[in-house]
């Protein structure tokens, strides 16, 4: 029997509407008790953590990470990526399928989820929606869900063909899992390396239009509506890393109409604009790209009004030689697991006044619900003992060279951020400690 007792902390559990001083007892990988301060003093725990001055919250959940294994281990491995996750306060991550080869089979899914990969936190995966993510033929959703898939995506690529997307939404609906879509009409973005607009014009780079994102979102919502009417199933569309005001508008309207649409926001999109590219800093290149200030403000508004369901990092490690090249040729993506909480607290909490509990809901309760994990994302008794302890007032400077990730491609090296993770506990095991 293993026990951890966490005392004197400010316990925030958005799922149970708790934001109070509470002591927390973890036993055998589960939450055993949540009590008023001192009420658990009789428990003779193997380990007692004094959380004075710290927030005690459900471990964070990231529904969108790239762990690069198998096949791209020069960028990241499941072990290093999940170590970075633990350092960032995450206790569950969802691995995207754009590995080499693409995760599109039960065999590759099982290999990825195998304990031998050395995941430090709870690892979930969304396999490819179509074979090799070619967008042609959907994978065996039934068998993959039995093997642990929590949804399907061709992330990095959109499912462009209407009929393929329709088939994927219906098959996923029958199994009760989401289709997670990278909304980009790649027919409109060839040769583009940043957001379209005055900054792209000034830098002489081809820009991705806002419509390239919003038109796919509109199309997917139209498919949802048709499927609900005709097929009598209720598909769940999850829109990844929404970056434009226009796509957010479509999602907001679809939600008001009762369709099952969820979406995520990435910290870089609510923190920076395309101006941050500066003198062609390739650590500011990602897809979707950083947008204009109006889109950034619309994203923050959509987070505040509930249109955005969760924060997801799109953690996308790349080796230095893949970034130290001409901007147009540089790989897309930045690391994000160790800076997500700090940026959310700095930008959304301090700067825009979102309550802590709201931010934690966006990073634990809501993502748990998107991937249908009833026993995670909360500190309710009997749920998994996934816990993060952090100092919400601590201001610090992020140092990329100290990252647990194998890669250093972040625009936030040297940036002042807010809120420092103290301890991360996954299923009752301490997986990170400052």
């Amino acid at each position: 029997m293993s026990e951890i007792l966490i005392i004197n902390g400010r316990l925030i559990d958005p799922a149970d509407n708790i934001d109070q001083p509470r002591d927390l007892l973890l036993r055998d990988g589960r939450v055993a008790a949540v009590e008023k301060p001192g009420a658990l003093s009789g428990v003779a725990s193997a380990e007692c953590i004094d959380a004075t001055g710290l927030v005690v919250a459900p471990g964070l959940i990231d529904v969108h990470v790239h762990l690069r294994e198998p096949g791209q281990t020069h960028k990241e491995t499941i072990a290093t990526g999940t170590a970075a996750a633990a350092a960032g306060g995450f206790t569950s991550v969802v691995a995207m399928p754009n590995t080499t080869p693409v995760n599109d089979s039960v065999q590759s899914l099982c290999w990825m989820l195998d304990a031998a990969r050395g995941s430090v936190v709870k690892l979930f995966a969304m396999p490819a929606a179509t074979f090799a993510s070619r967008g042609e033929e959907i994978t065996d959703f039934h068998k993959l869900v039995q093997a642990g898939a929590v949804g399907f995506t061709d992330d990095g690529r959109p499912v462009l063909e209407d009929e393929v997307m329709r088939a994927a939404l219906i098959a996923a609906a029958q199994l009760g899992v989401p289709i997670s879509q990278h909304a980009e009409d790649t027919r409109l973005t060839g040769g583009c390396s940043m957001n379209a607009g005055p900054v792209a014009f000034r830098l002489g780079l081809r820009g991705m239009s806002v419509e390239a994102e919003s038109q796919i979102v509109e199309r997917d919502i139209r498919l949802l509506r048709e499927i609900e009417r005709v097929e009598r199933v209720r598909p769940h569309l999850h829109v990844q890393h929404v970056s434009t005001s226009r796509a957010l508008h479509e999602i907001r309207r679809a939600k008001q109409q009762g369709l099952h649409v969820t979406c995520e926001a990435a910290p870089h999109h609510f923190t920076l604009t395309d101006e941050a590219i500066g003198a062609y800093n390739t650590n500011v290149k990602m897809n979707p790209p950083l947008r204009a200030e109006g889109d950034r403000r619309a994203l923050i508004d959509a987070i505040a009004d509930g249109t955005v369901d969760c924060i997801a990092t799109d953690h996308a490690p790349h080796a230095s030689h893949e970034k130290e090249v001409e901007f147009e040729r540089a790989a897309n993506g930045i690391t994000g697991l160790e800076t997500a909480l700090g940026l959310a607290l700095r930008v959304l909490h301090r700067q825009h006044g979102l309550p802590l509990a709201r931010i934690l809901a966006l990073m634990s309760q809501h993502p748990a619900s998107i991937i249908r994990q009833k026993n995670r994302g909360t500190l309710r008794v009997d749920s998994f003992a996934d816990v993060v302890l952090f100092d919400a007032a601590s201001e610090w400077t992020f140092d990329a060279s100290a990252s647990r990730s194998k890669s250093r491609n972040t625009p936030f090296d040297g940036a002042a951020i807010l809120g420092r993770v103290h301890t991360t506990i996954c299923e009752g095991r301490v997986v990170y400690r400052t």
Partner: protein
Amino acid sequence: MSKLEIKQELSSAEAEQFAAGSLLTVEHLSVADVAAILASAARLERMSAAERVRLLAGRTIALLFYESSTRTRTSFELAAKSLGATTTLVSDKSSSIEKGESLKDTGLTLRALGAEAIILRHPSSGAPELLARVTGLPVLNAGDGMHQHPTQALLDLRTMLLRLGKDAGTVDAKTLDGITVVITGDIRHSRVARSNAQLLPRLGARVILCGPPELLPEDALGLGAGIEIVRDFDRALAQADVAMMLRIQKERLAGVDLDLSEYVARYQLSSQRLAAQASQALVLHPGPIIRGLEITGEVADCAQSAIEEQVAQGLVIRRAVLVRALGVKA
């Protein structure tokens, strides 16, 4: 702290310091910098060839060209040689670039061989910034993608000053007061247009950009202050003291659907048009010219045209920026 300040603090992409003497873009060139380059160019021109050839004697300059070029490459090379420097030319064909060597490694190799400055032409916007960052050497941008061509803007400026009867040895924020420069054609793909549109208004000029929306998006107004868009060529030309024509860059036209005969009808600078709208205007073109498309042969060769003079001024300006790059007082 304002919201903007917080936002900037969160990004590490603040103005970067590149090696002194680099010329990557006109964007960060102050009026004083421009005046100093012009003064140096004038001094160098007055010198005897024998004096000039001592200035960079024993110094090594590399020309690294990933795109074809006639004017820019030749004038940089002749400028460097006239100053006594040893030059070496590396082009993407006939070098290890063909074997997949990166820009970074190519730059480091040139540095290891003793290059003290690199002149770079590259089809990717921002390549000079990358090269300057990884080598720490002064880099002279000889044209990068659709981004910048700073020496072209400087030589255009010197040509204008000479032809407008002004002192070509200095400038200030009012030098071009009352002068309207109309830049017409494929602005979207033009690094020359971007460099000129950013440089000239800082010296007092009014810049009118002219072209169809496919080749001139409204986003161009974001280049800076003092820029306007006029779609009607005749209306723009009627205001011109300087008419700068640009080539349609077929190699960068990807996805743009353009009816060339309609373009010629609406935007070609012909003798009739020039006589009707701007009979006194100075005609410039950075080259290469496609006679019969954006400009007729008659206009290119007429007395109002300073196209050849631009080429000659290229040599003068490039001497000045080379001397500046290597930190030598002219």
